[in-house]
């Protein structure tokens, strides 16, 4: 029924007048949130539609909720941006919503076809959105790169799917898995090859090394709200797909895959963090940071792949995803606010800006240090559950990955603390012209405070979020 609401929304939208669109879609996304809550509240057992190809369980519900909330925040972020840019409002919201729809589909998809459609639906609109600033060549360039790699990844996924289909003749994951086990093809080259192709395809969406190269450019080019959405929602979509596939399809061919993923996630952390150290452009910095974060989110699943103890893995990843989503949106909000005042790609131009806009300054402190994982801000708990699931089995891969994670946490601190340091401690940079736009429009205010509260609460009472993660993991594996 969630999906119905969402679809109806999309159908409604294009006919509306432009200035209402924003309102409606914002409201719509809120409305869509309601049935999720109801369903979660009186949840009894997984609803299985279309003979098992579409399942609504806690896992999907929780993530649906996350996606809708994130989209809602993205809308709020967008309002000012879209208004500043006179045409194509309707389309903008429509595209975002359809991407949301795709994400929603992915969460519940339990067969190749549905998942493929979901992924496509989620990513295709982003190609356009990333190129939204038509005049801006960077934007164009970002979008073309994004597009080409995206399509390539999609085709790789498809090829992998086709192989899977060929091997088993099934589309529904559970059947595929059973067939794989029965005719024990788990370790057969074809299966693994398909797994690799799919992994590569999804790796593009979650931007893990070496499939990450598009991210910085596209992030830099795309309009800020879109970037936020990319770094949170479509990344999450990718992870959802990855989680489902690993734990539903390849859960027995995990060994090799897991080890590869362990290495990938380790490398991803290092590449992401070390590259982020070098950035002076705040957006690129966040891009690389989100790459590093992807490494963190991936880690539990990777270890889970080896130990095939998926509950911990899913639990950690989902919890991380949820907390990460809000603090990251917050971080982008901060960049947005500061750029409204001083339009610059070099964050060192923002020296002492917090004196003029203290609220933004506080946001910056909260969100960036939360990303760095400093208690009592939400990020620490995200990192903590990841470490927990890494050490839970106490076998060597998990342990080493944990140590790598610890080291990276320290590296990350350096660049995460940089923006706060600049705007709080540095002295203002004279030869930068500021368009003294220190007041914060109400939509952004809302975004700020929503994600602020969620970040802090998730840090001080992590129980709530970890319960969500736990619930999802448990019911997911049932």
């Amino acid at each position: 029924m969630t999906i119905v609401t969402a679809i109806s929304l999309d159908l409604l939208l294009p006919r509306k007048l432009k200035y209402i669109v924003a309102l409606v879609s914002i409201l719509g996304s809120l409305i869509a949130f309601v049935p999720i809550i109801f369903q979660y509240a009186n949840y009894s057992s997984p609803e299985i539609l279309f003979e098992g190809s579409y399942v609504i369980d806690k896992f999907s519900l929780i993530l649906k909720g996350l996606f809708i909330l994130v989209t809602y925040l993205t809308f709020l972020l967008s309002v000012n941006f879209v208004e500043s840019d006179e045409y194509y409002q309707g389309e903008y919201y429509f595209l975002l919503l359809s991407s949301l729809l795709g994400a929603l589909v992915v969460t519940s998809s339990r067969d190749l076809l549905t998942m493929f459609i979901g992924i496509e639906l989620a990513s295709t609109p982003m190609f356009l959105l990333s190129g939204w600033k038509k005049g801006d060549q960077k934007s164009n360039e970002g979008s073309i790169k994004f597009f080409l790699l995206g399509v390539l990844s999609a085709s790789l996924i498809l090829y992998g799917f086709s192989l899977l289909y060929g091997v088993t003749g099934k589309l529904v994951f559970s059947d595929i898995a059973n067939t794989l086990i029965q005719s024990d093809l788990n370790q057969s080259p074809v299966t693994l090859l398909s797994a690799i192709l799919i992994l590569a395809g999804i790796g593009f969406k979650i931007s893990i090394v070496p499939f990450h190269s598009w991210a910085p450019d596209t992030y830099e080019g795309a309009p800020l709200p879109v970037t936020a959405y990319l770094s949170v929602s479509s990344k999450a979509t990718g992870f959802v797909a990855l989680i489902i596939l690993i734990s539903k399809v390849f859960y027995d061919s995990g060994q090799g895959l897991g080890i590869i993923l362990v290495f990938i996630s380790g490398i991803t952390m290092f590449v992401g963090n070390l590259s982020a150290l070098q950035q002076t452009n705040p957006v690129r910095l966040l891009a690389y940071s989100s790459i590093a974060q992807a490494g963190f989110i991936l880690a539990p699943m990777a270890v889970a792949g080896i130990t095939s103890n998926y509950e911990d893995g899913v639990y950690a990843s989902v919890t991380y995803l949820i907390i990460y989503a809000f603090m990251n949106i917050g971080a982008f909000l901060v960049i947005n606010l500061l750029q409204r005042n001083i339009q610059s790609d070099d964050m060192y131009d923002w020296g002492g800006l917090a004196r003029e806009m203290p609220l933004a300054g506080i946001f910056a402190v909260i969100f960036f240090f939360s990303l760095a994982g400093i208690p009592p801000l939400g990020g620490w708990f995200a990192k903590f559950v990841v470490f927990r699931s890494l050490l839970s089995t106490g076998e060597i891969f998990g342990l080493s990955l944990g140590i790598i994670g610890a080291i990276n946490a320290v590296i990350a601190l350096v660049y995460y603390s940089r923006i706060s340091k600049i705007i709080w401690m540095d002295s203002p940079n004279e030869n930068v012209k500021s368009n003294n736009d220190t007041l914060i429009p109400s939509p952004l205010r809302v975004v700020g405070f929503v994600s602020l509260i969620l970040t802090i609460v998730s840090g001080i009472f992590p129980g709530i979020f970890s319960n969500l993660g736990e619930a999802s993991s448990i019911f997911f594996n049932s």
Partner: protein
Amino acid sequence: MSIQPILIAAAALFSIGIYGILVRRNAVMVLLSIELILNSVNINFVAFNAMLSDVFLNGQIFSIFIITIAAAEVGIGLAIVLMLFRNRETANINEFDLMKW
């Protein structure tokens, strides 16, 4: 008849597509190469369907979906290429490298 030749053909098509993506400078040609890849996937699905004599025709349904989506993607791709062309008077993707570090 055996299925190997068809699969090999598909794989060949796939590789050609990849080669095209990597080598052709013109964005349109790159798009076409991508089409090739997608079609190779289609061939796979249909072939497998036949091989497995799948009563649900899952493979064929899948390939139909792929065709539609491929169409959509090419549309989007062309749109982006057009936009680029408008801004840069070229469709040579290798000239788009503003964002070196």
